């Protein structure tokens, strides 16, 4: 009887497993296969070739895009840690009605989605946007100039778009830290500075690393921000993959860029997974 129950339960798993194999594993494998095809005179060849990956590694133009992507992701992650930590600490300290209100304020932008927030940043940063109007009115500049399509506009927008992910993934760790520790440390003569860096921050570190890794992996592959704010000339890996596939029609090369994005993401997530093994976070994830 128990065997038959287990068998029935296994059958319940089948539909979702089948769906995942057919529409996730198979397409991704096909995409990987395509990335090894050659592409000449507008035709996708049948022969196995490493040309796409060699081009990514050797062509200075593509190398620059890879370096830019990693650099933007790194700066974005650092800023998300600096700006996200106080927000998370504030939510943990808040009591009464403030707590859900603050949580919803963080959650809301996330739920509204990247496209609309990028549109908002366009209205702030472009030639007739808020920043230019402000600077003109204050007499700091004489003629407006678009602030879009560059490193800092992409970073600022990306920080804003990804900040909620960092805050939400930090909350668990932060709310598990006993507030008495801080008071104990202060009453034993440590300064606020010492208390934060020697007591609180080390305890919060697993949460910071979890949040930072999520932000970093998302920043490496996010599409909306570089597409809308970076534009067609300031390419990152995601926009390069899209451009090659949809606009140039070089599907194999686009596939190779996609595989590179996938590999970078997996490296980040596996490295962090190794680090957090055994920590509280992992237990929370398993539940």
């Amino acid at each position, binding site marked *: 009887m128990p065997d038959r129950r287990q068998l029935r339960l296994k059958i319940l798993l089948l539909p979702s497993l089948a*769906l995942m194999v057919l529409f996730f594993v198979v397409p991704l494998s*096909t*995409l990987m296969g395509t990335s090894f095809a050659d592409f000449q005179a507008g035709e996708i060849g049948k022969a196995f070739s490493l040309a796409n990956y060699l081009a990514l590694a050797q062509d200075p133009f593509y190398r620059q895009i890879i370096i830019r992507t990693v650099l933007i992701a790194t700066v974005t992650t650092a800023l998300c840690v600096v700006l996200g930590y106080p927000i998370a600490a504030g939510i943990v300290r808040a009591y009464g009605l403030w707590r859900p209100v603050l949580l919803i304020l963080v959650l809301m932008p996330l739920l509204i989605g990247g*496209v609309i927030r990028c549109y908002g940043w366009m209205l702030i940063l472009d030639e*007739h946007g808020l920043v230019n109007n402000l600077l003109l009115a204050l007499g700091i500049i004489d003629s407006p100039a678009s602030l879009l399509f560059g490193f800092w506009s992409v970073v600022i927008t990306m920080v804003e778009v990804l900040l909620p992910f960092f805050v939400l993934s930090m909350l668990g760790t932060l709310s598990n830290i006993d507030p008495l520790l801080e008071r104990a440390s202060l009453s034993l003569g440590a300064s606020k500075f010492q208390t934060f860096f020697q007591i609180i921050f080390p305890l919060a570190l697993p949460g910071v690393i979890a949040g930072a890794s999520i932000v970093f992996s998302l920043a490496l592959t996010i599409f909306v921000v570089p597409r809308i704010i970076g534009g067609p000339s300031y390419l990152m890996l995601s926009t390069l993959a899209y451009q090659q596939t949809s606009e140039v029609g070089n599907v194999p090369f686009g596939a190779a860029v*996609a595989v590179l994005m996938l590999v970078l993401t997996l490296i980040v997530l596996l490295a962090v997974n190794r680090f957090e093994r055994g920590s509280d976070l992992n237990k929370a994830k398993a539940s």
Partner: protein
Amino acid sequence: MRPSSILFLVANVAIYLFLLLPVIIVIAISFSGTDSVAFPPTSFSFRWFVRFLGEDQLVSALMVSCGLAVASSIISLILGGIAAFAIARGTFWGRSAALNFLMTPLMVPALVIAMALLEFFAFLGTPSILGLLIGHVIITLPYVMRTMVAGLTGADMLAEQAAISLGCTPLQAIRLVTIPMLTNSMVASVLFSFIISFENLPLSLFLSDPDTVTLPMQIYNYIQWVFDPTVAAAATINFLVVVVLVFVAERTIGLSRFMGVMK
């Protein structure tokens, strides 16, 4: 208040402003009385909402997005719900491997999933709307799995067994005892799925045809070519949909408790 607390408070207010600024600007512009997208708007009107209702492309995109989000969250809830039940109640070998496998779409960039599906569906000749639906089910399934497995693990298994020993058939026990205990998890699953689907751009970018353009994609198209506040009105309507969902979730399940479920 001590100076350090004041500093902390000021920093927090500033960061919240930064976080909410783009949304506030878009909403403000959508009520503008003039043609310009300059901020702050100089006069107030609803004309861009009227214009929005007259733009067939935007309205039909809203319909496509709503339909897709409803259909994919229901399918994900059914598929993910029964799979989560098997994983939480089973004792067979490979349960956690199956769970990890069903969570992998979270680790793969949405753009990569979209590119893979484009090639695959083009090969199969799948109609655009069906391809979009399948894609949305794939990306929402992990959220359902996580919420439902957590809910089922938390729910008391003894209640189910008690119902059976008191004369229920196993199916009755599930229908009368287990499912009511899981209402919160199911509402949360549907909510997360709906929103994940509703705001997804990469899948539509690769899989939409002219008849199945979704709202994020139409907004994305508009902001590149149209420079009046109509698209801000569309964004405000999108915002209202999310506000209603969050409000419903907070009242029915206490959304704050489900924070840990988000990626």
